[in-house]
């Protein structure tokens, strides 16, 4: 689960990670009260969407920049008015963009130098890794590729936690001394506590900055949480912004379906994540384009199949459907009955190819054949994929 920058910064403050003063607003009236709570002077206006590249983004009405520096609060108010409820397109949003429903104002900090700091899971060691670099405010992937020596990684032993010597190593690698070193050490330790205590998947500060006054601040904040751990953090679940999620994905999650919309025209309905991914792959392999990832899980009940069909058909790009089920334990005939009921209920008119394999498959295929539905049966994944690609071509 992702959260907005303003929410992440509120979390940082709770854990003692210093951030610039700021205030969020979701309506024209709130823009005024939010600004009134901040001191007069240079102010940043930041669109709050769950996507990167905001600063270089363009709004659909042509207004450029989702993050702006303003010399005065009056300027900030005017700019914020143009951003609020406008749709911002960035490299990460796709061409449709995202509607900006929250504006975050912050006091514009005087920047002495920018750094990079992040904490996430290192899969190879199964330990948290703290990544730090003197190259902040730029794409860290580019730094890692071009100048890997400028990146320091510290792996934390979960049995002991973050050790003092590791904090000193990070602080030294960033070249801090004196008051800055002391402030940075405290910030790193508190950021790690925030990461660990909230079951975060990642916390990223880019840039981390120093000011001429010797402060060390998180100028930006990107935080995501491990979905599996949300059950023990109701206060974090409350931060979920459904406006940032695809309505079809929200609907799917109500039926325990794992659905992700893609931009192709062949929808697929599969049991199992690995099989669902490779069903998308095989559609592509035979020259088609998948419209979605959809894993109905191990159960695939009739209600789930009906819900899945409705979600799939809610995508206007879909021109055909491929159902690929390997019924290991479950009875293929139960699944076939569910498919027939679902197709009749939603009144499907698009080409449908069904590939069933596994337990009691003969009865399942007989049920499909006797249904009178205009569906095509596929014997193997390859056969089914070739058939649906041909039907939508």
């Amino acid at each position, binding site marked *: 689960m992702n959260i907005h920058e303003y929410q992440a910064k509120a979390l940082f403050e709770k854990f003692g990670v210093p951030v610039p003063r700021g205030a969020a607003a979701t309506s024209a009236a709130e823009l005024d009260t939010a600004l009134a709570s901040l001191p007069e002077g240079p102010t940043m206006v930041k669109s709050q969407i769950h996507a990167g590249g905001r600063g270089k983004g363009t709004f659909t009405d042509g207004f450029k920049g989702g993050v702006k520096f303003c010399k005065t609060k009056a300027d900030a108010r005017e700019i914020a008015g143009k951003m609020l409820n406008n749709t911002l397109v960035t490299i*990460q949003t796709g061409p449709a963009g995202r509607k900006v429903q929250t504006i975050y104002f912050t006091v514009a900090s005087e920047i002495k130098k920018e750094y990079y700091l992040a904490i996430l*899971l290192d*899969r*190879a060691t*199964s*330990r*948290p890794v703290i990544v730090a670099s003197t190259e902040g405010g730029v794409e860290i*992937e580019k730094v890692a*590729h071009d100048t890997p020596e400028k990146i320091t990684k510290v792996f934390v*032993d*979960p*049995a002991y936690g973050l050790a003092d010597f590791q904090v000193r190593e990070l602080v030294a690698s960033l070249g801090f001394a004196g008051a800055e070193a002391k402030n940075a050490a405290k910030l790193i330790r508190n950021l790690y506590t925030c990461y*660990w205590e909230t*079951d975060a*998947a990642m916390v990223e500060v880019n840039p981390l900055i120093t000011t001429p006054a010797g402060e060390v601040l998180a100028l930006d904040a990107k935080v995501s949480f*491990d*979905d*599996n*751990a949300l*059950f*023990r953090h109701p206060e974090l679940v409350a931060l979920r912004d459904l406006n940032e999620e695809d309505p079809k994905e929200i609907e799917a999650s109500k039926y325990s379906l*794992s659905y*992700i919309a*893609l931009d192709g025209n062949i929808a697929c309905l*599969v*049991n*199992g*994540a*690995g*099989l*669902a*991914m*490779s069903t*998308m*792959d*095989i*559609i*592509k*392999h035979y020259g088609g384009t*998948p419209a979605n*990832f959809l*894993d109905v899980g*191990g159960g695939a009940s009739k209600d789930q199949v009906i819900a899945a069909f409705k979600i799939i058909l809610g995508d206007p790009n879909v021109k055909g459907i491929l159902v690929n089920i*390997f019924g*290991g*334990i479950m009875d293929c005939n139960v699944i076939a009955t569910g498919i027939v009921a679902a197709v009749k209920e939603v009144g499907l008119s698009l080409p449908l190819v069904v590939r069933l*394999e*596994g*337990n009691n498959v003969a009865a399942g295929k007989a049920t499909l054949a006797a249904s009178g539905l205009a569906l095509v049966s596929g014997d*193997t*994944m*390859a*056969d089914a*994929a070739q058939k649906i690609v041909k039907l939508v071509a």
Partner: protein
Amino acid sequence: MSILITPATKILIQGITGEFGARHTRLSLDYGTQVVAGVTPGKGGQWFEHGTHRVPIFNSVADAARATGATVSAIFVPPPFAADAILEGADAGLELAVAITEGIPIRDMVRVKRAMQGGSTRLVGPNCPGLVTPGTGKDSFGGCRIGIAPGYIHKKGHVGVVSRSGTLTYEAVYQLTVKNIGQSTCVGIGGDPVNGTSHLDVIKLFNADPETHGMILIGEIGGTAEVEAARWIKANCQKPVAGFIAGATAPAGRRMGHAGAIVGGEEDTAAAKIAVFRECGIEVAATPSDLADALLRAAKARGVTLS
């Protein structure tokens, strides 16, 4: 032979009285697996009954192992309590703990993995279908089935299968069986980013097993575990290996069902992994439908008989 488990392996089920655990305990009993004990705290002294089978239930893993000689556990405990269940199995000195549970918090697994480091218990999973060593009876009856895989699709033989995904494993196994090619052991290592046993761990076991003549290695996008396994195969393994990577069409940054299946960097994409497979002499299956044929091609090239 086989790896990790044999038809004689005595297993216990943690979470035997839950709906999910009970259902698969019945299927394992039907398959002829030696399920000798169940564990549900507070229900010790009761029995799990299925047909003619009566399986004693214990309050703790230690009690169950001591009383029945079980050496392997299948864990069906719900996510909030699963980490504790794994540690209990390790503390009881089991040889193998197989965590089927899906949805365990990553932080819990980070701690569990560290706690088990240096210990004698191997963990497979979590979020995995488990293991099957097929038996010699009809539909491979008499084998050892730990977890949720369909037992009947297997056939006793000489191919080792290792995979992160459940249904994709079944797809490969089914193709092999239809072609009359049996399996030594099939291992689902699970789709989570932090797991107990890696592709490489299983490949090493298959390589050392004289009864395993060839292997199928099924991976996904995310992480670099498949690459690590492939490089080891190139340097150390003479047996034919076929491979497949799911997720070539998955967009970057989106989690595809499995928590571990997410593309983050340059080297964890399907294309990057497939390139390493090729470089390491692994016969790459173009689609999942090609898995058994890919292994046959690899076996032919090395003059190895699989059946």
